[in-house]
C-alpha cells in the first residue's frame, strides 16, 4: 500500500464508517474493507480512477468536491478522509467545515509549501517553487490553494477546529527527529486528525 495510506489506515478504527474525498483508485478503502471491516464510500471524478475503484469493489461515487457535500447529512460518518486534495479544491475552508459536519472526525493530508526547498527557490531564484512533492508549473498546477503547516493550523484555530493529532513526514514518508523539531521547514507532508471544537461536541 502507498506509504501515506498506511499511515492513515493506522488511524482508523475497525468497523468505522468512512467517507474518502478524492479516493483515487480506491486503495485505502479497499484495504480498510478487507482488513478493518470498514463501511466506506469514496468520491472521485477521474474516470480511470473510478473504474479502478469498481474493479476493487469500492463504493465509489462520481461527485465533484467543488460542488459541495450538501447531499451528505450531518453526523452520517465516523470519519471523513481527504488525502492530498485540500490544496486542489476551490474553498478548502468551506470543505473543512463540511467534513466536520458530516463526520465526527476527519483526517487531512497535504503537501507543505513552507518546506525549505520551496523557501529556497523563491528566495534565491525568485521563482515559484517546483519540488518532488509539488511537480507542476504555476500555470497548470491543480494545486491552487497551497499553504504551509502554520497557515493550516491558523485556519483551524480561527474556525475552532480541534487538532487531535499531527504527524509530519519527509518525501519518503519517514519521520526523522529533525522533522519534529522544525516541521514547517523540513516536513513534506502532514497528517492531521481533526475534530469539532470541544464546546460544540457537548
Amino acid at each position, binding site marked *: 500500500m502507498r506509504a501515506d495510506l498506511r499511515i492513515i489506515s493506522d488511524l482508523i478504527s475497525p468497523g468505522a464508517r468512512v467517507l474518502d474525498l478524492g479516493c483515487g483508485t480506491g486503495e485505502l478503502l479497499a484495504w480498510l474493507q478487507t482488513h478493518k471491516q470498514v*463501511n466506506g464510500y469514496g468520491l472521485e471524478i477521474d*474516470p480511470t480512477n473510478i*473504474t479502478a*475503484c469498481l*474493479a476493487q469493489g469500492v463504493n465509489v*461515487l*462520481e*461527485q465533484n468536491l467543488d460542488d459541495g457535500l450538501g447531499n451528505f447529512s450531518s453526523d452520517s460518518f465516523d470519519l471523513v478522509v481527504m488525502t492530498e486534495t485540500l490544496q486542489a479544491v476551490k474553498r478548502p475552508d468551506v470543505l473543512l467545515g463540511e467534513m466536520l459536519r458530516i463526520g465526527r472526525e476527519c483526517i487531512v493530508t497535504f503537501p507543505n509549501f513552507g518546506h525549505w526547498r520551496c523557501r529556497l527557490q523563491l528566495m534565491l531564484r525568485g521563482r515559484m517553487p517546483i519540488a518532488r512533492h509539488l511537480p507542476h508549473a504555476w500555470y497548470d498546477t491543480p494545486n491552487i490553494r497551497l499553504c504551509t503547516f502554520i497557515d493550516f493550523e491558523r485556519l483551524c484555530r480561527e474556525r475552532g477546529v480541534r487538532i487531535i493529532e499531527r504527524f509530519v513526514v519527509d518525501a519518503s514518508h519517514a519521520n526523522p527527529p529533525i522533522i519534529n523539531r522544525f516541521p514547517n521547514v523540513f516536513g513534506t507532508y502532514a497528517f492531521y486528525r481533526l475534530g469539532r471544537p470541544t464546546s460544540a461536541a457537548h
Partner: protein
Amino acid sequence: MNSHAADNSVGLVKPAIFRSSAPFTLQCGVTLPGFELVYETYGQLNPARSNAILICHALSGHHHAAGYHTPEDDKPGWWDSCIGPGKPIDTRRFFVVSLNNLGGCNGSTGPLSLNPSTGAFWGPDFPTVTVRDWVESQTLLANALGIRQFAAVIGGSLGGMQAMLWAMEHPERVRAAVLIATAARLSAQNIAFNEIARQAILSDPEFHGGRYREADSHPERGLSIARMVGHVTYLSGDGMHERFGRALKSGDRTGNNQVQFQVESYLQYQGRSFSRRFDANTYLLMTRALDLFDPAADAGDDLARAFAAAEARFLVIAFSSDWRFSAARSKEIVDALVAARKNVASAVIESPHGHDSFLLELPRYFDVLRTWLSRLADEVGTGTRALDAASG
C-alpha cells in the same frame, strides 16, 4: 446481411412463453385469471443457479434484447451491443433472462390479448399495471426458471425502476441492481411529456376509444406524434444539432417548394415506423406505469427508508446530456442509498446523446458496466465452467 454468426453474438434465439395459470391480482385490484409472458434467455444457468441476470425493458422495449430470430433479420435485439459473449453482460458467464412485460404488445398478455371473461380483445379495458405488478409477475417467471436469486437485475429508464423495486420488495432475491438513466419518481415536467403523448393518441379519430381493432383501424397518426414527442425528449439539443443542424431534406430557404428540414423527416420516419410496430393501448398503459412509480410515497416520502430493506449492491449510471432522466435524478437515488447505508457505486457518463445514451455503445459506459459485472461474475461463478464440466 447480419452478423448472427459473429463470435460476440448470442446468435439465433427463440422466444419462449411462460404461462402462469394462477389468478394474479394487480395493484389496481383487478384479478387476471392468469397470464403469459414471452421471454428469451441467453447463456447457461450454472448448477448453483446463481449467475442469472434479469433485463427489464423500458417504455417501448420487449423480450428480444440480443441475437437474431432468423438469419435474415436486419437488426439484432435492442441491447445486442451490451449482451453477448465477451460483451459487458457476458453470456459466457451469465445466464440472461429478458421478457416482454405484462400489458406489452410483443406477445405477453396485454391489450392485444383476449379477455377470457368476454371473449373479446382486452383493448382499452386492460387493467392499469404498475411497476410493482411487473416485478411480481417477473418473480413468477423466475420461480419457473428455478432462479431463487438473480445475480443482477438490470434496467434503463423504466427498466431501472423495475430493478429498483426488485431490490426493495424482494431483497433476498437480488444480489445486485444496475439502475441506468432512471429516477425514483417522475417530475411534473416528465409526466407532462407523457400526457402530451397520450393526448396525441386519444385525440386521433382512428383511436375509437381504444377499440380500433374492432373498427379495423389503427391510430397511426396519434401514436406517431406520441413517439415524435418522446423521441425529442430522448435526444439532447446539442446531439440533434450535431446530427441534423439546419440541413434541408427538400425545398429551399424561401419557404416555398415544400420545405422540409432533415430533422422533420427523421422524426416523421421514427414516428411512422414506431406506430407500425407498437400498440396504442400499450403505449397509454406503459406511460401511466411510469407516471405512477413512486416507491418513496409509501415510505413517508423518504427514499432512503424505501431502500431500507434492500440487500443488493447498486450501480447507478447517468448520462451528462440526459434531461428526461437527468443525472440529478440519479444522484437522488445515490444519496438515498448512501443514507440507507447500502453498497452503491455511481458514474456520470459524458455523452451528447441524451437519454438515448443508455442504449448506445459508449466506451466509458461499457467499461464501467464490464468492470462492475465482471467482479460480480467472479463472485457467483460462471456458466461456462458448468458447461465445460458437463461436457468434459
